[in-house]
């Protein structure tokens, strides 16, 4: 186990360096969430006038607080959709072979790619939180809660990574990886990212209730607007774990199939 951790560390370090050494990457990672949040918050700010916004309604800052978790989820989706291609890059240029000829555990190779993804998700979440605060939102749980939100986004990103890794490993094609990852985007909308459950049509409500993303969003939302709602946080962690288990099992199968 400790070897796995050490190997993941060194491979993760390598993958992280590969990411930040391209100036466009850290630049985009910080700028994109800011743009996204700003646009959506201005676009939808009157939505709080709708009845059904209930406890989280009223006042400028609160829609930002309402919106932020969903925005974070969106950015995680983007970060994940890019990550599968990195795996293919190594596959194509022979690096995967070189790594496999060393004693490194196969799964450490996958895990190494998850490290920069985790960090990217946290950075994007951080950018959104900072901008939200600047625009008037408040985080009820202060710094500890903010850190909790960052960790939840990182964990969610790692769990969600399968949606990009599996297409990559099965198609071995960067374009297909990107376009297949996009198929998952509507799932972000079928959640409480933008509107509370009360405003959803019945069929959407059903989807929403089973959507793991909603659990993650609600936990973050609670941390921002209410306090340490351990129930919500617990449900989010279970949702992330379940999601991760399912998606990573498929990912491992695809990886094993490729490296037979």
């Amino acid at each position: 186990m400790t070897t796995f951790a050490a190997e993941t560390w060194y491979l993760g370090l390598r993958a992280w360096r590969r990411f930040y050494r391209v100036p466009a990457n850290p630049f985009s990672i910080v700028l994109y969430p800011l743009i996204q949040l700003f646009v959506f918050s201005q676009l939808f700010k009157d939505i709080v006038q709708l009845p059904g916004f209930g406890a989280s309604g009223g006042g400028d800052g609160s829609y930002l607080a309402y919106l932020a978790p969903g925005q974070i989820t969106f950015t995680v989706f983007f970060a994940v959709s890019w990550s599968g291609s990195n795996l293919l890059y190594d596959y194509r240029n022979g690096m995967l072979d070189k790594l496999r000829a060393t004693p490194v555990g196969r799964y450490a190779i996958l895990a190494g790619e998850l490290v920069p993804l985790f960090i990217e998700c946290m950075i994007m979440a951080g950018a959104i939180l900072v901008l939200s605060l600047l625009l008037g939102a408040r985080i009820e749980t202060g710094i500890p809660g903010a850190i909790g939100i960052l960790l939840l986004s990182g964990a969610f990103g790692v769990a969600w990574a399968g949606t990009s890794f599996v297409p990559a490993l099965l198609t071995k094609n960067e374009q297909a990886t990107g376009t297949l990852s996009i198929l998952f985007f509507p799932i972000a909308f079928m959640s409480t990212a933008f509107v509370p459950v009360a405003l959803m049509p019945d069929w959407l409500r059903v989807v929403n209730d089973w959507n793991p993303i909603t659990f993650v969003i609600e936990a973050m939302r609670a941390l921002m607007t209410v306090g340490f709602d351990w129930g919500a946080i617990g449900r989010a962690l279970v949702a992330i774990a379940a999601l991760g288990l399912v998606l990573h099992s498929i990912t491992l199968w695809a990886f094993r199939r490729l490296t037979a």
Partner: protein
Amino acid sequence: MTGAPGSSVPATVEVEDLVKVYPGGTRAVDGISFRVAHGEFLGFLGPNGAGKTTTIRILATLLRPTGGRARVAGLDVVANAAAVRRRIGFATQTVTIDQMATGRENLALIGRLHGMSGAELRPRVEELLELMGLTEAARKLAGTYSGGMRRRLDLASALVHRPEVLFLDEPTEGLDPQSRLALWDELIRINRAGTTMVLTTHYMEEADRLCERLAIIDHGKIVAEGSPAELKRSIGADSVTLRLVPPGPAGDVDADALAGAQSAVSQRLHGLAAITEVEHISDGIRLAVRGADEVAPEILRRIDVDGVRVYGMSMAGPTLDDVFLKHTGRRIRAEEADQVISMGW
């Protein structure tokens, strides 16, 4: 001889009836057996598609064989893959380095993955950088290195953990002549220092110069085995090449004139016992001649008649290409277009 069948010293690499059939049905390796003794430099020589890369990838534990067995350093490559990996270094056909990492970081990563501690790793990395002449460029990103530098870095990364056996898949592929010579010297040096080397190549000169022993491969089978000198001696004939078309661009060859000249020459030389083979080539004719030094004057005398114009002549001792021709009926064409590298997992 160590490693010879029946000896008590186990060979460093032992392969028995190795078979690899790819999912589509291609029999890339069709029953190969050989041994490599400790410290030996073995080469696999053959055209592209012969099964060399597949064989070496099986030995490097990257591919599972369909049949047969292979052992490296006494360990089975399938059952004990992890243990084998600790003892081997592998350099792929295309140079594989992490472009977004520095030279130093590239070497350090492989070292770390082999479980080397910081204290061991740091001096070893510096030693290798020095050996490969990369010390000054060490802190620059590997993506900025020239082709030759990248190859040397790639080779260095296969040596970080001091492997017992080094597997090299077409190590000088695509290199300019100067870098090729430099790399050859490096490989010989590494071998002399005690590392067993197994190399695949389709360059005759490389096989000739570097390898103590060769296994000539075609269509997944070993067709000949022995030292370069032994193999060449087995031909027993030199080659005499006669140019029958005027010098000029290859496209200008008059096919009829050439065919006419070729058959005229063949007729004239009919009956000369020393000539063991006649081969029609794109600009003339190539003869396998026993003792060419003595027979050449007679050859020239016979064809010095009206209607046959010889534009040039050269003589050479047997080459590995001749060996290949003898065993397979074809030549290894070194200028054959490279196949797409299938990263067959």
